[in-house]
């Protein structure tokens, strides 16, 4: 198990007792996400669909790398890593 930090974006801090980051123990990104949604259950429905899929607008970055280009939720984590939960920023007219 590694000790990592999960960074919570501003809109979701109301579901993490106002904490901007939470320390969790995990060996993979998926386990870290499970740990944080177990500790803060309200985060779950905001991050995952009813079918248990990560919502399309939720990006997970391990340090500065998109986990979609790594081993997704199976990506291994090591001590001192930071997992960032980053809702997407986009838009346009029309």
């Amino acid at each position, binding site marked *: 198990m590694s000790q990592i930090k999960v960074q919570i974006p501003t809109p979701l801090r109301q579901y993490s007792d106002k904490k901007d980051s939470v320390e969790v123990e995990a060996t993979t990104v998926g386990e870290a996400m499970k740990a944080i949604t177990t500790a803060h259950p309200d985060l779950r429905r905001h991050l995952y669909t009813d079918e248990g899929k990560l919502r399309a607008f939720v990006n997970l*970055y391990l340090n500065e790398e998109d986990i979609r280009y790594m081993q997704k939720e199976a990506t291994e984590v090591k001590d001192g890593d930071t997992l960032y939960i980053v809702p997407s920023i*986009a*838009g346009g007219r029309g």
Partner: protein
Amino acid sequence: MLKLSQTEYAAIRQHGEDTYPHECCGVLLGSVNLDTDTRVVQSVVRAGNTRTDSPHNRYSIDPAELIRIQMQGRKRGEDIIGFYHSHPDHPAMWSSTDLAEAHWIGCSYVITSVDGDKTTGKAVFTKSWVLYGSPDGSAKQLEEEEMIVQNPEQ
């Protein structure tokens, strides 16, 4: 309510003129008071528009760039409190795409209309909209908020 300085306000509008006829985008760092629903801007940071396929009417910020901006802000005790983008030759009103793709509940989305001749443009209106709703995407809405530009130069 969104509070920002004249310098920050001018920086947001200038960015829209600089990227015209393309959309600009950036991040507002500062602090938020949830009880009074007030956001105070301490820094305005330009971001690149990753939508190079359609930059005249779409914008998107690379999450990795956002993480770097957030880390810089954190060193000064600042948090992400909102975002801004421009609407080249289009009103400073959010579009259906803006609403569909907005996910930072409780944050300000500042929009500047930039009118021009397709070569150079001038910033016209700047308006701020707050995203309300549930972060799972249900009942989202963008509501106009008061924007207070502090210490105006004239």
